[in-house]
Protein backbone atom coordinates (compact mmCIF):
# COMPACT_ATOMS: atom_id res chain seq x y z
CA UNK A 1 0.00 0.00 0.00
CA UNK A 2 2.77 2.43 0.92
CA UNK A 3 4.65 1.80 -2.30
CA UNK A 4 1.59 2.40 -4.41
CA UNK A 5 0.81 5.58 -2.56
CA UNK A 6 4.27 6.90 -3.18
CA UNK A 7 4.12 5.98 -6.85
CA UNK A 8 0.79 7.70 -7.19
CA UNK A 9 2.19 10.76 -5.48
CA UNK A 10 5.16 11.11 -7.75
CA UNK A 11 3.19 10.44 -10.88
CA UNK A 12 0.15 12.54 -10.09
CA UNK A 13 0.91 15.15 -7.49
CA UNK A 14 -2.44 16.85 -8.03
CA UNK A 15 -4.42 13.85 -6.77
CA UNK A 16 -1.94 13.11 -4.02
CA UNK A 17 -4.34 13.49 -1.13
CA UNK A 18 -7.01 11.10 -2.39
CA UNK A 19 -4.42 8.54 -3.47
CA UNK A 20 -2.89 8.43 -0.04
CA UNK A 21 -6.29 8.09 1.55
CA UNK A 22 -7.55 5.16 -0.44
CA UNK A 23 -5.01 3.17 -2.48
CA UNK A 24 -5.00 -0.32 -0.97
CA UNK A 25 -3.57 -3.74 -1.57
CA UNK A 26 -5.54 -6.77 -0.44
CA UNK A 27 -5.13 -10.49 -0.18
CA UNK A 28 -8.51 -12.11 -0.79
CA UNK A 29 -8.96 -15.74 0.20
CA UNK A 30 -12.23 -17.30 -0.96
CA UNK A 31 -13.44 -20.60 0.49
CA UNK A 32 -16.31 -22.58 -1.04
CA UNK A 33 -18.08 -23.81 2.09
CA UNK A 34 -20.55 -26.12 0.36
CA UNK A 35 -20.40 -29.88 0.15
CA UNK A 36 -21.58 -30.30 -3.42
CA UNK A 37 -21.84 -26.97 -5.26
CA UNK A 38 -19.27 -25.56 -7.71
CA UNK A 39 -18.46 -21.88 -8.21
CA UNK A 40 -17.93 -20.80 -11.83
CA UNK A 41 -15.04 -18.37 -12.51
CA UNK A 42 -15.10 -15.74 -9.80
CA UNK A 43 -15.20 -12.01 -10.32
CA UNK A 44 -13.56 -9.99 -7.55
CA UNK A 45 -14.29 -6.32 -8.13
CA UNK A 46 -13.23 -3.14 -6.36
CA UNK A 47 -15.34 -0.11 -7.15
CA UNK A 48 -16.73 3.11 -5.75
CA UNK A 49 -19.83 3.75 -3.64
CA UNK A 50 -22.07 4.44 -6.62
CA UNK A 51 -21.61 1.04 -8.22
CA UNK A 52 -23.09 -2.39 -7.52
CA UNK A 53 -22.63 -5.68 -9.35
CA UNK A 54 -26.01 -6.61 -7.83
CA UNK A 55 -28.48 -5.34 -5.25
CA UNK A 56 -31.19 -7.35 -3.51
CA UNK A 57 -34.73 -6.19 -4.25
CA UNK A 58 -33.80 -4.87 -7.69
CA UNK A 59 -33.96 -6.54 -11.11
CA UNK A 60 -30.70 -8.10 -12.29
CA UNK A 61 -28.79 -6.37 -15.08
CA UNK A 62 -28.34 -8.42 -18.25
CA UNK A 63 -24.63 -8.70 -17.33
CA UNK A 64 -25.51 -10.09 -13.90
CA UNK A 65 -27.99 -12.50 -15.51
CA UNK A 66 -25.26 -13.76 -17.88
CA UNK A 67 -23.07 -14.51 -14.85
CA UNK A 68 -25.88 -16.13 -12.84
CA UNK A 69 -27.37 -18.20 -15.67
CA UNK A 70 -24.19 -19.25 -17.44
CA UNK A 71 -21.14 -18.22 -15.44
CA UNK A 72 -20.09 -15.58 -18.01
CA UNK A 73 -18.43 -12.66 -16.16
CA UNK A 74 -17.25 -10.77 -19.27
CA UNK A 75 -20.26 -8.45 -19.29
CA UNK A 76 -19.87 -7.54 -15.62
CA UNK A 77 -16.15 -6.95 -16.17
CA UNK A 78 -16.71 -4.57 -19.08
CA UNK A 79 -19.61 -2.70 -17.47
CA UNK A 80 -17.87 -2.24 -14.12
CA UNK A 81 -14.51 -1.22 -15.62
CA UNK A 82 -16.28 1.41 -17.72
CA UNK A 83 -17.26 2.96 -14.38
CA UNK A 84 -13.79 2.78 -12.86
CA UNK A 85 -13.78 -0.63 -11.22
CA UNK A 86 -10.53 -2.55 -10.83
CA UNK A 87 -11.22 -6.27 -11.22
CA UNK A 88 -9.61 -9.61 -10.73
CA UNK A 89 -11.10 -12.11 -13.16
CA UNK A 90 -11.12 -15.80 -12.45
CA UNK A 91 -8.60 -15.99 -9.58
CA UNK A 92 -9.28 -19.72 -9.16
CA UNK A 93 -8.40 -20.37 -12.83
CA UNK A 94 -11.67 -22.10 -13.54
CA UNK A 95 -14.19 -23.74 -11.25
CA UNK A 96 -13.82 -23.52 -7.49
CA UNK A 97 -14.88 -26.99 -6.40
CA UNK A 98 -16.87 -27.76 -3.23
CA UNK A 99 -14.87 -27.15 -0.02
CA UNK A 100 -11.93 -25.77 -2.01
CA UNK A 101 -10.08 -22.49 -1.51
CA UNK A 102 -8.55 -19.93 -3.81
CA UNK A 103 -6.22 -17.07 -2.95
CA UNK A 104 -6.03 -13.75 -4.75
CA UNK A 105 -2.77 -12.13 -3.64
CA UNK A 106 -1.76 -8.48 -3.86
CA UNK A 107 -4.99 -7.18 -5.34
CA UNK A 108 -4.45 -3.46 -5.86
CA UNK A 109 -7.80 -1.72 -5.62
CA UNK A 110 -6.51 1.69 -6.71
CA UNK A 111 -8.74 4.36 -5.22
CA UNK A 112 -11.79 2.09 -5.02
CA UNK A 113 -13.25 1.72 -1.54
CA UNK A 114 -15.72 -1.16 -1.98
CA UNK A 115 -15.32 -4.84 -2.71
CA UNK A 116 -17.84 -7.07 -4.49
CA UNK A 117 -17.66 -10.73 -5.52
CA UNK A 118 -19.83 -12.94 -7.72
CA UNK A 119 -19.80 -16.46 -9.16
CA UNK A 120 -22.56 -18.75 -10.41
CA UNK A 121 -23.44 -21.81 -8.36
CA UNK A 122 -23.53 -25.07 -10.34
CA UNK A 123 -25.83 -26.85 -10.67
CA UNK A 124 -28.50 -24.15 -10.37
CA UNK A 125 -30.58 -22.23 -12.89
CA UNK A 126 -29.59 -18.72 -11.83
CA UNK A 127 -28.09 -19.06 -8.38
CA UNK A 128 -24.93 -17.23 -7.44
CA UNK A 129 -22.68 -16.55 -4.49
CA UNK A 130 -22.33 -12.85 -3.89
CA UNK A 131 -20.82 -10.02 -1.90
CA UNK A 132 -22.37 -6.59 -2.54
CA UNK A 133 -20.27 -3.52 -1.79
CA UNK A 134 -18.31 -4.39 1.31
CA UNK A 135 -16.55 -1.28 2.56
CA UNK A 136 -12.82 -1.99 2.53
CA UNK A 137 -11.46 -1.06 5.95
CA UNK A 138 -8.75 1.58 6.04
CA UNK A 139 -7.02 -0.15 8.93
CA UNK A 140 -4.57 -2.90 8.02
CA UNK A 141 -5.69 -6.28 9.34
CA UNK A 142 -7.54 -9.48 8.55
CA UNK A 143 -11.31 -9.44 8.10
CA UNK A 144 -13.72 -12.37 7.66
CA UNK A 145 -16.98 -12.18 5.70
CA UNK A 146 -19.58 -14.90 5.13
CA UNK A 147 -21.42 -14.88 1.81
CA UNK A 148 -24.92 -16.06 1.00
CA UNK A 149 -26.39 -17.69 -2.10
CA UNK A 150 -28.66 -15.45 -4.18
CA UNK A 151 -31.18 -16.05 -6.93
CA UNK A 152 -30.92 -13.59 -9.83
CA UNK A 153 -34.70 -13.81 -10.35
CA UNK A 154 -34.22 -14.04 -14.10
CA UNK A 155 -34.94 -17.73 -14.73
CA UNK A 156 -37.41 -20.26 -13.37
CA UNK A 157 -35.71 -22.84 -11.15
CA UNK A 158 -36.78 -25.81 -13.24
CA UNK A 159 -33.65 -27.79 -12.26
CA UNK A 160 -33.42 -29.39 -15.69
CA UNK A 161 -29.81 -29.90 -16.80
CA UNK A 162 -29.92 -29.31 -20.54
CA UNK A 163 -26.86 -27.17 -21.22
CA UNK A 164 -28.92 -23.97 -21.13
CA UNK A 165 -26.42 -21.24 -20.24
CA UNK A 166 -27.40 -18.19 -22.28
CA UNK A 167 -29.60 -15.49 -20.80
CA UNK A 168 -33.24 -16.33 -21.41
CA UNK A 169 -32.60 -19.99 -22.18
CA UNK A 170 -34.18 -22.25 -19.54
CA UNK A 171 -32.22 -24.98 -17.83
CA UNK A 172 -28.95 -25.56 -16.07
CA UNK A 173 -25.67 -25.64 -18.02
CA UNK A 174 -24.04 -28.61 -16.28
CA UNK A 175 -23.19 -30.42 -13.08
CA UNK A 176 -19.39 -30.40 -12.99
CA UNK A 177 -19.39 -33.15 -10.37
CA UNK A 178 -21.48 -35.44 -12.63
CA UNK A 179 -23.82 -36.43 -9.83
CA UNK A 180 -26.86 -35.37 -11.81
CA UNK A 181 -29.80 -37.28 -13.23
CA UNK A 182 -31.56 -36.78 -16.55
CA UNK A 183 -35.10 -36.77 -17.87
CA UNK A 184 -36.59 -34.47 -15.24
CA UNK A 185 -40.05 -33.01 -15.78
CA UNK A 186 -39.08 -29.72 -14.12
CA UNK A 187 -39.68 -28.37 -10.62
CA UNK A 188 -41.43 -25.20 -11.77
CA UNK A 189 -41.84 -23.06 -14.86
CA UNK A 190 -42.32 -19.74 -13.06
CA UNK A 191 -40.16 -17.33 -11.09
CA UNK A 192 -42.25 -15.60 -8.41
CA UNK A 193 -39.72 -13.05 -7.22
CA UNK A 194 -38.09 -11.51 -10.30
CA UNK A 195 -35.74 -9.34 -8.27
CA UNK A 196 -32.45 -10.51 -6.78
CA UNK A 197 -33.20 -12.37 -3.56
CA UNK A 198 -31.86 -15.06 -1.24
CA UNK A 199 -31.90 -18.39 -3.08
CA UNK A 200 -34.44 -20.82 -1.64
CA UNK A 201 -32.15 -23.75 -2.38
CA UNK A 202 -32.29 -26.66 -4.77
CA UNK A 203 -35.13 -29.14 -4.36
CA UNK A 204 -33.55 -32.03 -6.26
CA UNK A 205 -34.76 -35.61 -6.22
CA UNK A 206 -33.23 -39.08 -6.01
CA UNK A 207 -34.23 -40.30 -9.49
CA UNK A 208 -31.51 -40.93 -12.11
CA UNK A 209 -33.76 -40.91 -15.15
CA UNK A 210 -37.03 -39.33 -14.05
CA UNK A 211 -38.56 -37.18 -11.32
CA UNK A 212 -39.00 -33.41 -11.18
CA UNK A 213 -35.31 -32.49 -10.99
CA UNK A 214 -32.00 -33.46 -12.57
CA UNK A 215 -30.31 -32.22 -9.43
CA UNK A 216 -29.62 -34.75 -6.67
CA UNK A 217 -31.28 -33.81 -3.39
CA UNK A 218 -28.62 -35.79 -1.49
CA UNK A 219 -25.73 -33.91 -3.09
CA UNK A 220 -26.77 -30.52 -4.39
CA UNK A 221 -28.42 -28.81 -1.45
CA UNK A 222 -26.83 -26.15 0.70
CA UNK A 223 -27.59 -23.77 3.55
CA UNK A 224 -26.22 -20.27 3.91
CA UNK A 225 -23.49 -19.20 4.18
CA UNK A 226 -21.96 -20.77 1.06
CA UNK A 227 -18.61 -19.00 1.08
CA UNK A 228 -16.15 -17.49 3.50
CA UNK A 229 -13.95 -14.63 2.39
CA UNK A 230 -10.88 -13.62 4.36
CA UNK A 231 -9.58 -10.22 3.35
CA UNK A 232 -6.18 -9.05 4.50
CA UNK A 233 -5.75 -5.30 4.18
CA UNK A 234 -2.00 -4.71 3.87
Amino acid at each position, binding site marked *: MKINSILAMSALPLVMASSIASAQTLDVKIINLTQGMYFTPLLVSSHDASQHLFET*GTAASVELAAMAEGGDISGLVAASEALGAVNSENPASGLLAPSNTTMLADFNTGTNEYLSITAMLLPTNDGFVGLDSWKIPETAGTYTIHLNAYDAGTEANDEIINGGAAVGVPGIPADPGANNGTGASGV*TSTETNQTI*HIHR*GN*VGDTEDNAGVSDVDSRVHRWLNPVAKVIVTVK
Partner: protein
Amino acid sequence: MNMKKYFGIGFSVFSLAFMSACSDSDNDSDDMIIGTMQSYQLTVSNLTSNQPLSPLAAAIHDSNYTAWSIGVESSIGLEKLAEEGATTEFLSEATAAGAYVNVSGDGAIFSGESDTLEIESAMHDEMKLTIASMLINTNDAFTGAQSIDLSGLEVGDELSVLLPVYDAGTEANNELAGTIPGPADSGEGFNVVRDDVNVVSRHPGVVTDVDGYNDSVLDSSHRFDAPVAKLVLKRTQ
Protein backbone atom coordinates in the same frame (compact mmCIF):
# COMPACT_ATOMS: atom_id res chain seq x y z
CA MET B 1 -45.83 8.25 6.71
CA ASN B 2 -47.11 6.43 9.78
CA MET B 3 -47.14 9.59 11.89
CA LYS B 4 -50.74 9.24 13.00
CA LYS B 5 -50.28 5.73 14.25
CA TYR B 6 -47.18 6.22 16.24
CA PHE B 7 -48.21 9.53 17.71
CA GLY B 8 -51.47 7.97 18.81
CA ILE B 9 -49.64 5.29 20.70
CA GLY B 10 -46.51 7.29 21.34
CA PHE B 11 -47.99 9.98 23.56
CA SER B 12 -49.58 7.57 25.96
CA VAL B 13 -46.32 5.68 26.26
CA PHE B 14 -44.52 8.95 26.72
CA SER B 15 -46.61 9.85 29.73
CA LEU B 16 -46.42 6.32 31.11
CA ALA B 17 -42.65 6.31 30.84
CA PHE B 18 -42.51 9.75 32.38
CA MET B 19 -44.63 8.65 35.31
CA SER B 20 -42.63 5.51 35.90
CA ALA B 21 -39.38 7.42 35.65
CA CYS B 22 -40.62 9.83 38.31
CA SER B 23 -42.23 7.36 40.64
CA ASP B 24 -39.64 4.62 40.55
CA SER B 25 -36.97 5.80 42.92
CA ASP B 26 -35.02 2.55 42.49
CA ASN B 27 -34.35 3.32 38.88
CA ASP B 28 -32.63 6.65 38.90
CA SER B 29 -30.52 5.75 35.91
CA ASP B 30 -33.46 5.87 33.53
CA ASP B 31 -33.32 9.58 33.00
CA MET B 32 -35.52 10.71 30.19
CA ILE B 33 -34.41 14.01 28.79
CA ILE B 34 -37.60 15.80 27.84
CA GLY B 35 -37.49 17.57 24.53
CA THR B 36 -34.68 15.47 23.12
CA MET B 37 -36.45 13.30 20.58
CA GLN B 38 -34.70 10.72 18.45
CA SER B 39 -36.12 9.60 15.13
CA TYR B 40 -35.31 6.44 13.22
CA GLN B 41 -36.22 5.17 9.79
CA LEU B 42 -36.68 1.41 9.52
CA THR B 43 -36.69 -0.21 6.08
CA VAL B 44 -37.34 -3.95 5.80
CA SER B 45 -36.80 -5.67 2.43
CA ASN B 46 -38.31 -9.08 1.76
CA LEU B 47 -35.54 -11.35 0.40
CA THR B 48 -37.62 -14.52 -0.01
CA SER B 49 -38.88 -16.19 -3.15
CA ASN B 50 -42.57 -16.28 -2.18
CA GLN B 51 -43.12 -15.60 1.51
CA PRO B 52 -44.95 -12.30 1.95
CA LEU B 53 -44.16 -10.68 5.30
CA SER B 54 -46.99 -9.51 7.55
CA PRO B 55 -47.15 -5.82 8.58
CA LEU B 56 -44.10 -4.91 10.64
CA ALA B 57 -44.27 -4.50 14.40
CA ALA B 58 -41.52 -2.45 16.02
CA ALA B 59 -40.84 -0.97 19.45
CA ILE B 60 -38.10 0.99 21.22
CA HIS B 61 -37.54 -0.17 24.77
CA ASP B 62 -35.05 -0.89 27.55
CA SER B 63 -33.52 -4.16 28.71
CA ASN B 64 -36.63 -5.09 30.70
CA TYR B 65 -38.34 -6.26 27.48
CA THR B 66 -37.44 -9.41 25.56
CA ALA B 67 -39.80 -10.30 22.73
CA TRP B 68 -38.63 -13.91 22.42
CA SER B 69 -35.86 -16.25 23.55
CA ILE B 70 -34.68 -19.52 22.05
CA GLY B 71 -35.98 -22.39 24.20
CA VAL B 72 -38.61 -20.25 25.91
CA GLU B 73 -42.38 -20.40 25.36
CA SER B 74 -43.86 -17.74 23.05
CA SER B 75 -46.04 -15.05 24.58
CA ILE B 76 -49.62 -14.94 23.34
CA GLY B 77 -48.75 -11.77 21.43
CA LEU B 78 -45.85 -13.46 19.67
CA GLU B 79 -48.08 -16.46 18.91
CA LYS B 80 -50.64 -14.20 17.24
CA LEU B 81 -47.92 -12.41 15.29
CA ALA B 82 -46.34 -15.68 14.12
CA GLU B 83 -49.60 -17.52 13.34
CA GLU B 84 -51.64 -14.75 11.72
CA GLY B 85 -49.45 -11.67 11.40
CA ALA B 86 -51.33 -9.65 14.04
CA THR B 87 -49.33 -6.81 15.61
CA THR B 88 -51.69 -5.39 18.27
CA GLU B 89 -51.16 -7.78 21.13
CA PHE B 90 -47.44 -8.21 20.40
CA LEU B 91 -46.99 -4.45 20.70
CA SER B 92 -49.22 -4.06 23.75
CA GLU B 93 -47.05 -6.64 25.51
CA ALA B 94 -44.03 -4.50 24.64
CA THR B 95 -45.76 -1.44 26.09
CA ALA B 96 -46.67 -3.37 29.23
CA ALA B 97 -42.99 -4.28 29.58
CA GLY B 98 -42.04 -0.62 29.46
CA ALA B 99 -41.48 0.07 25.75
CA TYR B 100 -41.31 3.82 25.17
CA VAL B 101 -42.96 3.80 21.76
CA ASN B 102 -44.12 1.39 19.08
CA VAL B 103 -45.26 1.40 15.48
CA SER B 104 -46.82 -1.07 13.06
CA GLY B 105 -46.72 -1.28 9.28
CA ASP B 106 -49.70 -0.59 7.05
CA GLY B 107 -49.61 -3.76 5.00
CA ALA B 108 -47.87 -6.93 3.94
CA ILE B 109 -44.44 -6.74 2.29
CA PHE B 110 -44.36 -8.96 -0.77
CA SER B 111 -41.26 -10.73 -2.05
CA GLY B 112 -38.81 -8.31 -3.63
CA GLU B 113 -40.54 -5.33 -2.00
CA SER B 114 -39.82 -3.26 1.10
CA ASP B 115 -41.61 -1.11 3.66
CA THR B 116 -40.30 1.90 5.56
CA LEU B 117 -41.52 3.01 8.98
CA GLU B 118 -40.63 6.07 11.02
CA ILE B 119 -40.37 5.73 14.78
CA GLU B 120 -39.58 8.49 17.25
CA SER B 121 -38.81 8.31 20.93
CA ALA B 122 -37.66 10.54 23.72
CA MET B 123 -34.05 9.82 24.61
CA HIS B 124 -33.42 7.32 27.41
CA ASP B 125 -30.30 5.76 28.83
CA GLU B 126 -31.20 2.52 27.12
CA MET B 127 -32.46 2.66 23.54
CA LYS B 128 -33.15 -0.79 22.09
CA LEU B 129 -35.13 -1.70 18.99
CA THR B 130 -37.17 -4.85 18.44
CA ILE B 131 -38.92 -5.62 15.15
CA ALA B 132 -40.87 -8.68 13.97
CA SER B 133 -43.01 -9.97 11.11
CA MET B 134 -44.60 -13.29 10.08
CA LEU B 135 -43.73 -15.27 6.94
CA ILE B 136 -47.37 -15.66 6.04
CA ASN B 137 -47.12 -18.75 3.81
CA THR B 138 -46.08 -20.82 6.82
CA ASN B 139 -47.71 -22.21 9.94
CA ASP B 140 -45.85 -20.05 12.48
CA ALA B 141 -42.57 -18.74 11.09
CA PHE B 142 -41.47 -15.21 11.83
CA THR B 143 -38.48 -13.01 11.21
CA GLY B 144 -37.11 -10.14 13.20
CA ALA B 145 -34.39 -8.72 15.35
CA GLN B 146 -34.49 -7.78 18.95
CA SER B 147 -32.78 -5.41 21.30
CA ILE B 148 -30.63 -3.76 18.64
CA ASP B 149 -28.69 -1.11 20.56
CA LEU B 150 -29.53 2.32 19.14
CA SER B 151 -27.64 4.34 21.72
CA GLY B 152 -24.43 4.59 19.71
CA LEU B 153 -26.08 5.86 16.52
CA GLU B 154 -25.50 9.49 15.60
CA VAL B 155 -27.88 11.41 13.35
CA GLY B 156 -27.30 10.15 9.80
CA ASP B 157 -25.77 6.85 10.90
CA GLU B 158 -27.13 3.77 9.20
CA LEU B 159 -26.81 0.10 9.98
CA SER B 160 -27.87 -2.91 7.98
CA VAL B 161 -28.90 -6.22 9.54
CA LEU B 162 -29.79 -9.45 7.76
CA LEU B 163 -32.69 -11.13 9.54
CA PRO B 164 -32.97 -14.85 10.36
CA VAL B 165 -36.14 -16.93 10.51
CA TYR B 166 -37.62 -18.29 13.71
CA ASP B 167 -40.34 -20.79 14.57
CA ALA B 168 -42.73 -19.69 17.33
CA GLY B 169 -43.22 -23.34 18.29
CA THR B 170 -46.94 -22.79 18.86
CA GLU B 171 -48.36 -24.53 15.77
CA ALA B 172 -47.18 -27.75 14.15
CA ASN B 173 -45.49 -27.22 10.79
CA ASN B 174 -47.94 -29.53 9.06
CA GLU B 175 -48.36 -27.30 5.96
CA LEU B 176 -51.91 -28.68 5.64
CA ALA B 177 -54.78 -26.99 3.80
CA GLY B 178 -56.66 -24.68 6.10
CA THR B 179 -53.75 -23.97 8.46
CA ILE B 180 -51.77 -21.27 6.64
CA PRO B 181 -53.14 -17.71 6.45
CA GLY B 182 -51.11 -16.48 3.45
CA PRO B 183 -52.18 -16.59 -0.21
CA ALA B 184 -50.77 -20.13 -0.60
CA ASP B 185 -53.74 -21.40 1.42
CA SER B 186 -55.91 -18.56 2.81
CA GLY B 187 -56.41 -20.80 5.81
CA GLU B 188 -56.66 -20.19 9.52
CA GLY B 189 -54.46 -17.70 11.28
CA PHE B 190 -54.38 -17.74 15.06
CA ASN B 191 -55.51 -20.82 16.94
CA VAL B 192 -55.16 -20.91 20.70
CA VAL B 193 -54.23 -24.59 20.66
CA ARG B 194 -50.50 -25.16 20.99
CA ASP B 195 -49.70 -28.44 19.24
CA ASP B 196 -45.97 -27.98 18.68
CA VAL B 197 -42.79 -27.92 20.79
CA ASN B 198 -44.03 -24.77 22.59
CA VAL B 199 -40.68 -23.03 22.65
CA VAL B 200 -39.08 -20.64 20.16
CA SER B 201 -36.30 -21.97 17.92
CA ARG B 202 -34.73 -21.20 14.56
CA HIS B 203 -37.01 -22.40 11.77
CA PRO B 204 -36.18 -25.70 10.03
CA GLY B 205 -37.65 -24.57 6.68
CA VAL B 206 -40.69 -25.84 4.82
CA VAL B 207 -40.97 -29.26 3.14
CA THR B 208 -43.51 -28.45 0.37
CA ASP B 209 -45.21 -30.75 -2.13
CA VAL B 210 -42.14 -31.06 -4.38
CA ASP B 211 -40.14 -32.85 -1.72
CA GLY B 212 -42.30 -35.90 -1.22
CA TYR B 213 -44.93 -34.39 1.07
CA ASN B 214 -48.01 -34.61 -1.11
CA ASP B 215 -50.38 -33.21 1.53
CA SER B 216 -48.49 -29.92 1.77
CA VAL B 217 -50.32 -26.92 0.30
CA LEU B 218 -46.95 -25.25 -0.27
CA ASP B 219 -44.97 -25.54 -3.51
CA SER B 220 -41.32 -25.07 -4.46
CA SER B 221 -41.68 -21.28 -4.59
CA HIS B 222 -42.45 -21.17 -0.86
CA ARG B 223 -39.14 -22.69 0.18
CA PHE B 224 -36.62 -20.41 1.84
CA ASP B 225 -33.19 -20.19 3.38
CA ALA B 226 -32.00 -17.54 5.79
CA PRO B 227 -31.63 -14.62 5.78
CA VAL B 228 -35.21 -13.88 4.78
CA ALA B 229 -35.16 -10.10 5.10
CA LYS B 230 -32.86 -7.12 5.39
CA LEU B 231 -33.36 -4.32 7.91
CA VAL B 232 -31.75 -0.97 7.22
CA LEU B 233 -31.96 1.26 10.26
CA LYS B 234 -31.13 4.95 9.98
CA ARG B 235 -31.17 7.62 12.67
CA THR B 236 -32.75 10.70 11.12
CA GLN B 237 -32.91 13.01 14.15
